């Protein structure tokens, strides 16, 4: 098992929806124990890219490789079966179910036999609580609590712990910190680091450069559907990354434009461009 071999790779992937080209010639790799940060402005194609990786969309052309073998993910289920876990912004799913029950949806532990095989609540709660606590979330100690009653960060952590417990190899996080305050975000970033330490490959989407820099080993910036920059930790400064994300225009340029506009329009800011 070479540490350098990518688990998952995109080779020349294009995606269009009818006449709209959303992704152009994407080449990316993720490795075990590495966090790939996917950066880019709104509409750059980040979500589309991870939907291809998680089986929601199919690439129009190009290939996906897993452990060097070309693979297809016809459904989200197929991607999940191959160890690709996607955690959505609010940690997903089932807010009105208990922690134990939601953790085991589809793979519930049972006890007894035949028609009297019952859901093993105690076992489910124990395993679920232990899985989250192993990630350092010791405040979760009761598997009967409803998922919707957890904080945003705790819910993310639960979802990540669940993915790891069920053997995910690639963890995809679409803006997990977007709706969170500073403390909660720090929480999630710690969990991401823990997942990485356990040898998962993580794809982390964010708009916040600080969050990306806190966990990222590798960075890819998408601009209008193409990989505009691909670099490693420490190769670029925070300002350079911010400028890249703004679509090549530097922040200083943007500020100058806005100030110039406001000066000539009685102090009104320019209307949004889209």
């Amino acid at each position: 098992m070479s540490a350098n071999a990518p688990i998952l790779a995109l080779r020349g992937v294009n995606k269009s929806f009818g006449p709209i080209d959303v992704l152009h010639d994407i080449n990316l790799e993720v490795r075990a124990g590495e966090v790939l940060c996917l950066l880019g402005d709104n509409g750059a194609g980040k979500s589309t890219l991870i939907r291809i990786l998680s089986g929601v969309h199919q690439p129009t052309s190009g290939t996906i490789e897993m452990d060097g073998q070309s693979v297809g993910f016809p459904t989200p289920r197929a991607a999940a079966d191959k160890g690709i876990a996607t955690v959505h912004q609010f940690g997903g799913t089932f807010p009105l179910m208990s922690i134990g029950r939601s953790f085991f949806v589809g793979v519930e532990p049972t006890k007894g036999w035949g028609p009297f095989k019952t859901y093993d609540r105690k076992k489910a709660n124990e395993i679920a609580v232990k899985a989250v606590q192993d990630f350092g979330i010791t405040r979760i100690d009761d598997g009967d609590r409803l998922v919707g009653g957890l904080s945003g960060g705790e819910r993310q952590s639960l979802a990540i712990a669940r993915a790891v417990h069920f053997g995910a190899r690639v963890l995809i996080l679409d803006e997990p910190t977007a709706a969170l305050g500073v403390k909660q975000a720090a929480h999630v970033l710690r969990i991401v680091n823990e997942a990485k330490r356990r040898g998962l490959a993580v794809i982390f989407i964010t708009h916040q450069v600080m969050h990306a820099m806190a966990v990222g080993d590798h960075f890819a910036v998408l601009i209008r559907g193409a990989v505009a920059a691909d670099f490693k930790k420490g190769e670029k400064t925070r300002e350079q990354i911010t400028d890249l994300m703004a679509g090549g225009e530097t922040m200083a340029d943007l500020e100058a434009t806005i100030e110039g506009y406001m000066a000539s329009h009685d102090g009104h800011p320019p209307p949004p461009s889209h």
Partner: protein
Amino acid sequence: MMASFAPFLRRPEAASIISLIGIVAFYVIIGGVDLVTLFGAASWINFAANLGIVAIPVGILMIGGQIDISIGAMIPAGSMTVAIVSGHFGLPIEVGILATLSLGAIVGLVNGLLTVRTTVPSLIVTLGTLVVMQGVVLAGANLLTGAASVKIEAPAWAKAAFGSLIGSSHQVIILWWLVAVVVFAFVIHKTRFGNWVFAMGGDLVSARNAGVPTARLTIMLFMLSAMSAAFVGMCGAIQFNSAQVSGGMGYIFNTIVSIVVGGVLLTGGFGSVVGIFIGTLTFAIVSQGIYFTQIDRNWSSLIIGVTLLLAVAMNESFRKFALRAGPRQATGRR
């Protein structure tokens, strides 16, 4: 005090229990009803049992994120089927029962298939089958028997099982209802299958991605609700020795009120079988118990409406409470 009360309030059926106690207290205090008379009376219990057998599967369907209003036509369809097959044509009752349940299974299958194969909401799908089945029952009865009312004389065993009275006034269907409550409470709250229903109602796509066979499960639940409605219709025909083409529409409104009072979330993912049971009892007492009070029965709709609104408000706040606090914090132990 709060410590022992908090876990209770977090249960889906908490509000329905309070509603039930509240309405009985209201009828006793304001209506001057005698509790012994009320609880000894069969009328509202019979009403509750007929309603309850339909409300349980429809409520489970609602927990799973769907709704079925075609039950309004499936009740007369069930009584007509058994009456035409075994009454008008004189075939053995077993054939009539089989035909009735098969009809339920087929309509449920159609409801389920249309719901999972299209993006049409199940409210509209089952509105369609409701109207279609009404037409089928009317035209079918007319075509086959030339009448809107068909007689049926069931043999003794079938009469005993589906249409007899226990004591002198309690319908045997009450027993079927209680069995259904126990069986479904077990299945929904103690098995994997039950967990899938909650997951499906909470988030259909995530449940499917987690490996829950959502399409099959949805179809099964629709079949169950249509078959239950046909069963209730069949029991009525055997009980009263005749079937009518009309009736059943009231069940649509009554089941939904009972289910929602019982704490099931209209949008799915939350609820309990015990809650549906108690919601049905509450609704039956509100609507039928009024005859035992000195309250003018014209007020009954008003009382039903107020009960519904209060129950919904309570459900809402208890659900928030359940979400907000874990048992540990709520009991004050940090």
